[in-house]
């Protein structure tokens, strides 16, 4: 129930709409995928 106060910021959502932290975070996710791929791909090529 104590969350009510926070939720009332419907109108304010525009100025709070920046998502640079999200962009940063998903970039980390993307890099994670890429690095994992490189690791296993490198191992595969080295063992050919």
């Amino acid at each position, binding site marked *: 129930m104590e969350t009510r106060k926070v939720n009332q910021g419907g109108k304010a959502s525009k100025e709070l709409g920046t998502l640079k932290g*999200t962009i940063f975070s998903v970039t980390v996710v993307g890099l994670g995928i890429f690095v994992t791929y490189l690791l296993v791909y490198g191992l595969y090529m080295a063992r050919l």
Partner: protein
Amino acid sequence: MMHRSEKVWLFLSFGMIIGFMLITGYQTFALEMGPPSYGERIDPQKVDETAPFDNPGIKQIGEDEYEVVMTLQVFSFTPSKIEVPAGSTVHFILTSKDVVHGFQVAETNLNAMVVPGYVQKITQKFDNPGEYLVLCNEYCGAGHQMMSTTITVK
């Protein structure tokens, strides 16, 4: 509906995955590096009487090129000891006489499922001398952890 950055993220990340796919496709179809997919059928109860498995063993088929005909059964590989000179390419022809087995050689890309009723083929070039551990990587019974042999590269 979607934030611009979300579209960019989905486009880039999925593009990256498509990139992985293209590399895979190029290696599979242009460089013939596809995963082991041979599928000739065989009667799993008559492996010993069916060529070439009636005579398992190693055979030189060219300069630096060998062919190993191998059967897998609980809990061993036949032939059990293999020796090849360094730099040779070895073609393995495999089948199972009983349950599903796995054929894996540690520190190489040799890894294939060996299923009763099917002939499997996989190839590897051994550049570095040493003793390579061959093991079964699909659970096949009480002695599964003992099912191993070695390939010696001189």
